[in-house]
């Protein structure tokens, strides 16, 4: 068990049955009362942020969580198959666990997989990926009105909005957190 003196950024603890990581903390001692640690923490499963005032002496249960860097290999009917980049072990992670992240998870990409009690519970992508366009309508020369966009597909099948000048085979940079086109890196 941890106590409040162990609190530091990144410490993983259990709160109400879910694993959290400490994001911010501050020593406070109100009035003539006990010492507390004002704590902001993030739920590792849902990303929800929780604020708790932990009283000095309160015991905190460590969360059995571990992050591993894994390479995404391929998909089968209901799961994605990843390989641990250090041990080469392969694991199947249900598609539901990966969720919408799959849109920006091309094959062979390295991702961070969070294990909770030995089970993979979340996959986080790099913030930016580089992808070639596999399908889009030709741009219309001359139509350069600012902000005009069209849909384009990348290898994962996800469709994103790109400027009209982007063509099939162009490599672009995408922000995986927002799904937005950022820039063209090279032309077909």
């Amino acid at each position, binding site marked *: 068990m941890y106590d409040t003196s162990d609190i530091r950024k990144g410490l993983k603890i259990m709160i109400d049955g879910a694993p959290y990581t400490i994001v911010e903390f*501050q*020593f*406070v*001692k*109100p*009035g*003539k*009362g*006990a*010492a*507390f640690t*004002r704590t902001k923490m993030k739920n590792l499963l849902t990303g929800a942020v929780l604020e*708790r*005032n*932990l*009283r000095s002496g*309160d*015991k905190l249960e460590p969360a059995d969580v571990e992050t591993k860097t894994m390479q995404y290999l391929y998909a089968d009917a209901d799961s994605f198959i990843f390989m641990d980049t250090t041990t080469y072990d392969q694991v199947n992670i249900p598609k539901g666990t990966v969720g919408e992240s799959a849109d920006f998870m091309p094959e062979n990409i390295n991702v961070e997989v969070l294990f909770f009690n030995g089970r993979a519970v979340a996959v986080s992508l790099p913030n930016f990926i580089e992808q070639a366009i596999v399908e889009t309508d030709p741009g219309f020369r001359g139509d350069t009105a600012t902000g005009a966009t069209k849909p384009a597909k990348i290898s994962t099948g996800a469709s994103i909005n790109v400027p009209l000048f982007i063509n099939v085979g162009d490599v672009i940079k995408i922000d995986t957190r927002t799904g937005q086109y950022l820039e063209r890196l090279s032309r077909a």
Partner: protein
Amino acid sequence: MVASRETLEARARILRAVRSWFEAQGFLEVDTPARVRSPGQEVHLDALPAGRGHWLITSPEYHMKRLVAAGLPRIVQIAKCWRDNESGPHHRGEFTMVEWYRANAPLEALADDSEALLRVAAAAAGRDPAALGLAAPFARTTVRDLWARHAGFAIGGDEDAAALRAKAMAAGVAVGTAVAWDDLFYQVFLDRIEPNLAAAGPTFVFDWPAPLAALARPKPADPRVVERFELYAGGLELANAFGELTDAVEQRRRFEEEARLRAARGRDVYPIDEALLAALPRMPPTAGIALGFDRLVMLVLGLGDIAEVAAFGDERVG
């Protein structure tokens, strides 16, 4: 993070202005022992050992009250105090306290003093009191009023700890394993009250529940609360004031209870200050207050960390 030269200069100017303000009000500046046998017995304070059965003071209050009892009606002290296991943006193990007493004066007189002092400090630092929100009269409220507005339930001061815990949980406050009355109070305070105080202008909070009496006397009109206020400004807890308890029998009972709680929680137990108890019957009705000088400097200079207002503020104490 340490104080800049400009901060140290401003701190010195504020200190001089505070001293001359007290002198102009007819206060006698005193200097009481820093190394004592009986430091504050409060349950949540830890003194630093100072050798041969002595401790460094956590507050100069016991000796200052003996001076009031001995016939000095208006005294002030600017004292270094030490508290073990306190370290954070608003806490240092070694800090400077401005503590003053007014015999035969109501608690409100100390609120008036504090308001004046904050403006004096701002002016001494070359800051506009209005820009710091210190120009208008400070808000004066009560613990019960804050609870009614922000906590989601009413607090009386006579409910037992189990009832308080049930009410806090029903209101959705995460109270953890807290079962003691004061711990439950502060879980709610931190969760619901303090964030609102931090966003408000300078505020005096009066009428604290009897279980948080410390050295304060019960309010004659409503003994469920005591004569105590705290001053909050700019998100800082700046000062704590009491209508001082002069009933030596009741004071001994509280010291013994605190000693029992300290022992139960595995903390050092300090000898009861018999000299203070012997002096209390001679003490006139008195109001006393402690104001954190480092935090006062933080407030008027707009600095967020106590290490930024002290020379060598980054050196660890204790």
